């Protein structure tokens, strides 16, 4: 079964719709789905009041439920929160907390995404073909519950604080990233193909950050370890250029690995004298 949602109008107020989740939709008729509760601003509404809901036959029924959203849902928060299986595809921009605490399944977005996508996730995949906001894969402010697994792929740019407190999993960014990539990271891998803002890996304890583009400076609490010819991002993906390998963050007695492209960062060549 496959459900398509079309926003009925342009949303003015924030909408909290954690009910847009393949498991919650499973086994329900479109009329029943239309009765699910959502918050629009401080008013409780039903999903049917905000979206046109259509049922379309799914070609491959073995994969579990699927949801397609067509239209701008940039005011809608918590889509796919806590989902464990199934698939959500969104053609348009999406709001904050997409796939929060998700444990499995897949979310694909053909558009831009707000902050906190994949926050506190434990498994599954989020693929974003546009840009993502700040706090991608990061916990809510103040919390230390970073992502415990899963994979996030962004084909565009992302904001600040990617992968805060990350404990496991992979985040791949094929565009540029803002400041504080992998802040307080414990384990896992973050790959930034483009340029990266300052303070990458601040307070990291362990894990890997790979910067394929320009980075203005490496934090003084990192020490250079060696030059590497290639770096493995994950199974089946290897980056073949030379990298400086820095270790840190020493203020936390960290063992984290920060790889920075040699070719794109000639201003860091002065570190090479410490390698002799």
């Amino acid at each position, binding site marked *: 079964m496959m459900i398509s949602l079309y926003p009925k109008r342009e949303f003015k107020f924030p909408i909290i719709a954690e009910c847009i989740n393949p498991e919650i939709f499973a086994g329900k008729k479109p009329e029943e789905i239309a009765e699910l509760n959502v*918050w629009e601003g*401080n008013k409780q509404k039903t999903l049917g009041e905000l979206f046109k809901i259509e049922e379309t036959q799914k070609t491959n029924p073995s994969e579990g439920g699927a949801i397609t959203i067509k239209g701008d849902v940039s005011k809608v928060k918590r889509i796919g929160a806590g989902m464990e299986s199934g698939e959500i595809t969104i053609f348009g921009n999406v709001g904050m907390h997409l796939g929060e605490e998700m444990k499995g399944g897949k979310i694909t977005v053909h558009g831009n995404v707000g902050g906190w996508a994949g926050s506190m996730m434990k498994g599954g995949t989020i693929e974003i073909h546009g840009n993502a906001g700040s706090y991608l894969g990061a*916990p*809510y*402010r*103040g*919390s230390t*519950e970073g992502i415990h697994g899963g994979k996030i792929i962004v084909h565009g740019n992302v904001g600040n604080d990617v992968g805060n407190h990350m404990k496991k999993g992979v985040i791949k960014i094929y565009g540029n990233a803002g400041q504080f990539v992998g802040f307080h990271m414990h384990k896992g891998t973050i790959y930034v193909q483009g340029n990266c803002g300052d303070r990458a890996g601040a307070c990291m304890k362990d894990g890997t950050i790979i910067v394929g583009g320009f980075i203005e400076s490496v934090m003084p609490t990192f020490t250079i370890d060696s030059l590497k010819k290639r770096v493995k991002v994950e199974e089946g993906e290897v980056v073949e250029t030379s990298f400086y390998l820095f270790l840190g963050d020493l203020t936390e007695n960290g063992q984290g690995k920060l790889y920075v492209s040699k070719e794109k960062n000639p201003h860091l060549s002065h570190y090479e004298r410490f390698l002799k």
Partner: protein
Amino acid sequence: MELLIRNGFVYDPINDIDGEKMDIAVKDGKIVKKVNGRKARKIDASGMIVMPGGVDIHSHIAGGKVNSGRLLRPEDHFRDYEPKTSITRSGVGYSIPSTFTTGYRYARMGYTTVMDPAMPPLEAKHTHEEFNDTPIIDKASYPLLGDWWFVLEYLREGKIEECARHVAWMITSTKGYAIKLVNPGGLEAWGFGHNVASLDDQVPYFCITPREIIRGLCKVNKLLNLPHTIHVHTNNLGKPGNYTTALETMKCVEDLADEGKPAIHITHCQFSAFKGDDWRTLESGAEDIANYVNAHSHLTMDMGQIIFTDTTTMTADGPFQFNLYQLSGNKWTNHDVETETSSGIVPFHYRRKSYVHAVQWSIGLELALLIKDPWKIFLTTDHPNAGPFIAYPKIIAWLMSKKAREKTMKKIHPRARSRSLLPSIDRELSFYEIAIMTRAGQAKALGLKTKGHLGVGADADIAIYNFNPETTDPSKKYKALRRAFKRTAYTIKDGVVVVKNGEVVKNAKGATIWLDVKTSEQVKVTEEMKRRFKEYWTVEYENYPVTEHYLEVSRPIVVKADV
């Protein structure tokens, strides 16, 4: 307005009523003998439990520290929020709820009087501002006086009467209710980066020991005829082996007690009942403490029961909070409140699978079950230090049902389980005993004459729980018990129904209770005192006292002192 509550099973320990089926009449916010049966609004409480409104002797619900905790923990609000209704305001917070939510949640559990136990005098205005915004419940606060420079100096010089007059002035000008001591001497030492390790350690620069402070303020408390005893958070709190310090603290005021009357309240005793040399050899000291308490009558205490959850610890005990930060590595704050006290906050997660936390959980329940007289030990979680107050129904279930205890026991750390005394304790408390531990005993210890009972003339603060003690056995149906105590069928505050079927139906204002201590001779505000205010405090003497118009609903209790 008249109200008649009919046919409930009434538990009113102060008036020796144990589950008797009877009617309670209410008129103009007070309990009366009878009302006009035709005119009065009737509430059918048949098959339900009727108790006086709950009284909480120790719960951090307002003030500078609580608010810092709110700022420190946005993730605590994110998890738990309540939307606004046509009657109530919205609010957030699990372990440190916002003021409005605090009032609503207490009222939903049938609690109507709550004491905030730690008010630095300098933050008194802030505390009272938050009290004004805490609806429904009556509240009061204990100013922290155990490390206040003036007190330390008077006591060092042995000037008990001058000290008493000064304390009276402090309590009245901060609009406080009792004398609170936190790690006496230790907080002043913490200002210099030290702590005190025993009752006879000297406080740097003051040449005074914790023993002298405790005894001195205990005498002051007696001279002033304050309704509550001194409220003591012991030295060495939260350190293995500290049960000896707790016992010594209790012993040190033995001779100051009047016949049969308590002279000291040891608060959140669970944190002061650790046996063992370090965290690995930690054991329960509950049995030793319970044996002492069973043999003496000069003290009361409260549990400080651990709940396995993510909570926020906050005390005025700065050095303890610093140790906790070093243990946990969590984010933290620590604060030196000028010449008065210190404070600290550390978020903390109590886990079943941690040996230490599981032992702590066991200690709290052992204390409550091994101390035979429920008038001596009260139910608290030291909210939010050992767990949020919304967990009280869970603790009631553990105390009333061995089955509930065993169920939790199965999930805790195996070594802690094998060392716990709980499997050997068969005691299951009755509703009468629970009524003592959650309202009557606490009201009596606080000296609140119109609270905690349903006798004629008492405030009409009443909680009605939908649980039939005749047909349902609480020790077997502990889940139903928990549900019933989580949300009352009715909560009545000052004769008005404020909660019905677990929902707040009226947004009433609660009063702020404070002591107006009348001394025969007014404390003289000398030029010397003003000079010191200028020199040592950021607040001028003129701006220091809290005036009565600062309290929205002020309920002073006049106390005549012997000095």
